[in-house]
């Protein structure tokens, strides 16, 4: 009996000793986190959308970072973009940081609305990345009051995707579409429609992406430089864009659509001869393998009546932001080592996912200069990358989508015959009352 008791007692002692040990170890790890050093078992949560693109890129980054930093766990959570916006707003409004992730992906058009409303909730990354390393146009949306908050990710650099076979049928070559104005584009479109019966492009009346691309190519936007004041009436570039838009419609070369499936379906089934859009469409274009060799990408057309318009623009594109919560240093370090500076990583992104980054140095890499057989051996990535550098820097401000909702309605009025000046003045008035 005595023996039994002593054994029991001994095992209790041992147990308590063990548990006190484990307590100590957890304490030290907590201290490590609080101290900001790369402590043990750091966990980084990332919110992003689009499995094939953004999530895939983040997973690649995770793999690369894990090779050197095995003690950091990166937890990528996929959400729809709207959900992320909602959750982020909810979390930031409530003032608690518990529900927020360490890293979040935000579309450039919306970035300022978050940065300006909650500057303290985001972690400035000036000590980790150099803003000058990235394409200039990305800096506007991702920075606020001189501080760099976002790590610029994908380029939304716009290009004009064209069907070379349709061009040929209409008696043109790709060269005829290089560095054209929208007016020249319309003429070629008419010829193609006449010869092949195919429309030149698709348009969705509810999405003014084309207008946005046009005005950014001229260095203009829906808002003033301050990012707050609506700039619709007397916006020369916008006027030119609206007129050009109407010309395109009047030319009867547009296949009207109203959703994404129709958009993708139209060029996949060969119903349209061109797609003026962001480079992220490349994957969808290449999805139709039968059309290999029939496509080329040419520079974005310019607005004929706007001198500032260049052959480069942007559509979409997003960047990574570090939230000002526990573990921010680790998260910032992770972004610095991958999206912030790793040229090799960007080569992997291009070859495996087709994502073109905005790190300038990455454009020198091998993958960027490789020719693409689908586009007849064109060095598409290099071309797109070079256009990226020319994209005019505009301040998307806080209200891009709010203004666009107004413009969508006014555009219909314009199409139905209302004077342009009236349309834009109406829109200006509405915007001024709604925003603020």
């Amino acid at each position, binding site marked *: 009996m005595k023996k039994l008791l002593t054994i029991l007692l001994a095992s209790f002692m041992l147990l308590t000793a063990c548990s006190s040990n484990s307590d100590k170890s957890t304490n030290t790890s907590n201290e490590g986190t609080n101290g900001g050093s790369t402590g043990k078992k750091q966990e980084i949560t990332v919110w992003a959308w689009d499995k094939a693109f953004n999530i895939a890129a983040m997973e690649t980054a995770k793999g690369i970072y894990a090779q050197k930093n095995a003690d950091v766990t990166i937890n990528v959570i996929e959400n729809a973009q709207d959900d992320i916006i909602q959750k982020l707003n909810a979390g930031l409004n409530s003032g608690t940081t518990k529900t927020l992730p360490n890293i979040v992906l935000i579309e450039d058009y919306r970035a300022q609305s978050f940065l300006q409303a909650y500057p303290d909730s985001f972690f400035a990354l000036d000590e980790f990345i150099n803003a000058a390393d990235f394409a200039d146009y990305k800096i506007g949306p991702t920075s606020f009051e001189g501080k760099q908050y976002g790590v610029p990710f994908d380029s939304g650099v716009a290009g004009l995707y064209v069907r070379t076979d349709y061009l040929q049928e209409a008696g043109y070559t790709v060269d005829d579409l290089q560095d054209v104005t929208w007016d020249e584009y319309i003429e070629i479109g008419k010829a193609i429609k006449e010869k092949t019966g195919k429309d030149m492009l698709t348009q969705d009346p509810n999405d003014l992406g084309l207008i946005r691309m046009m005005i950014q190519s001229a260095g203009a936007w829906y808002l003033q430089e301050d990012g707050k004041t609506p700039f619709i009436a007397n916006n020369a570039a916008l006027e030119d864009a609206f007129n050009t838009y109407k010309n395109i*419609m009047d030319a009867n*070369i547009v296949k009207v659509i109203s959703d*994404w*499936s*129709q958009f*993708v379906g139209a060029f996949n089934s060969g119903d349209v001869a061109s797609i003026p859009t962001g480079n992220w469409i490349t994957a969808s274009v290449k999805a139709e393998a039968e059309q290999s060799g029939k496509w080329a990408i040419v520079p974005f057309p310019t607005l004929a009546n706007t001198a500032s318009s260049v052959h480069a623009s942007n559509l979409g594109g997003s960047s990574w932001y570090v939230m000002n919560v526990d573990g921010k240093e680790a998260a910032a370090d992770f972004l610095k080592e991958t999206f912030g500076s790793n040229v090799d990583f960007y080569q992997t992104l291009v070859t495996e996912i087709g994502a073109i980054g905005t790190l300038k140095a990455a454009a020198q890499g091998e993958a960027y200069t490789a020719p693409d057989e689908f586009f007849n051996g064109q060095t598409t990535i290099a071309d797109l990358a070079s256009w990226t550098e020319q994209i005019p820097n505009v301040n998307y401000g806080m209200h891009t989508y709010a203004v666009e909702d107004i413009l969508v309605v006014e555009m*219909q009025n314009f199409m*139905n015959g209302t004077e342009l000046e009236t349309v834009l003045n109406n829109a200006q008035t509405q915007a001024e009352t709604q925003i603020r």
Partner: protein
Amino acid sequence: MKLRRIADKLKYHDLFIKMFSIMLISIIAVALSTWIVMFRMSEQVFIDTFSITNSKIMTQIKTSMENMNYAVSMTASNANTSGEIRRFLTSSQYTTIEELNSHYKVTQEMRRIQSTLATYPIAMVITGINGNRHATDTTIWPPTYKGLQEHSITKQTLTEPRKLHYQLDESTIDGKKNSEAVVVASKALVEQVSGDFYGVLYFAMKEAEFRKNYAGFTTKGNDVLLINSDGVVISSNLSERLGTKELELLNYAQLIDKQEDEYLNVEWNNRQHMILSAYMPNYDLYLVNLIDKRYVLSQMLNVKTVALLCVAIVIVSLIIVFIMSRRITRSLTLLARQMSRVTKRNFGNYITVKGSNEIVEVGKAYNLMLDELNEYIAELLKTQKEQRNAELSALQMQINPHFLYNTLASVKILVQQGNREKASATINALIELLQNTIGNASETITVEQELINLKNYVYINHVRYGESIHVSYFIDEQCHRAQLPKLIIQPFIENAFFHAFQGRSDGYIYVMISRNGGNLVCEVVDNGVGFEPIKLDQHIKSETSSHFFSGIGIRNVNDRIELLYGGSYGVNINSSTGKGTHITITIPFISAKDITKT
């Protein structure tokens, strides 16, 4: 050998083994039966409560599903009556601007109509006979319009245009088949008045979202499936069952519906299931609730813990029982061992008294018994000895009356013959003989005295039968004072007188007494006819009237010596026919002084 030793050991633990095994069996039996009964009872309780709560839950699910269906069918009817949508799907011959306008308007219209569905993440899709189409959210459905016209969902819809069809589309989803499967409710768009068909309306909802109608109620082992009338699983928390045909479940569901049962107990997927079902006529779907009885019960009861607890309790009680019964039986075992050591004639093995109170009492009683037993035996021995002595002395008293008669007759003849001297000598010898045998009370006498008795006896015999048989005495000097039991030599001389010389007129008898180490050796040798050893018994037993004593036989002599001195002493008879008889009596040499001392 080893086995035997073990068997021997076990023999003493017999009681313990029996006691312990009875305890073992009964404890295990009690634990097991309690466990089983409890298990059965809780199973019954569980089934009763589960069937009640789950049928309530089923009603709840049904209600929430009906609500959704109501919203969907309301929206469908709104869409059907919308002129904007009808125009969008029927008209053709547009300019781009008109088309743009029409698309814009239909987008607005769809948005407006869809607002009645705002609480559900449902995408609306319309396709028209003019090839126009629109989807409110293509991330949900359809991924592409290609092939939609020929899709089984569309075809199914056109067979019954006025009905809202609920179907599952998992055919066009890339890679992840199940998680992205879409539940599609479809309805043909038909002109109200003319009945002309002009398009199809689809409501698409990711199955994962559709599932939320009931997902809150499901747990592992408590599953919900929605099965259409073809047996196809439209939605389920069991993702792997999506789109499969479950005809067996459909049969059960229809059976429950027909018999208006609460639930059925069935074997499904090789496991015992309780199945509840409700038919939802609006959906034309069976809402099936499957409960894996064993699993859910194990969740509720945690069979493992209960079993472990039972085992632990059984083991602990067995250990206690083992120790206790061991302690109790150990003292008994010891007692049994000590008792068994008390072999025959060895009553000195007293027991060391220890252990429990009862055992101590038993031990004490046993020891007491041994004491008494020993006392009794001692007493018995004493009495026996006394009895023997008394017997002997009695025997010694019984001098054969014939001997006396014959001797006295011989004396009478001597007197008549006038031989007074010889007559008086004979009378004297007789007197002396009688005096020594009857008068002397002590058991042993000296060799000297015995010699006198012998001589007197021989003298009387000579007077009676003549002096043809000569008796000679050779006595060792140092033996005169030695002690010997009374009248042990006389019977042999008497025997020699009357039997050794039958048919002969003369003979010799020698009596020799000598010391051999610690022994006194008396020998009676005759040169008579001798006898075969076999005849010894008859020979000795035969009694004649001429004998001095009526009761003391030669055999008695031997017994007396053994009784007095022990087994190593006695009479040895050596005889053969024609060669005479040699009798040797060996007794311990004890001188008369020793006797007086002790």
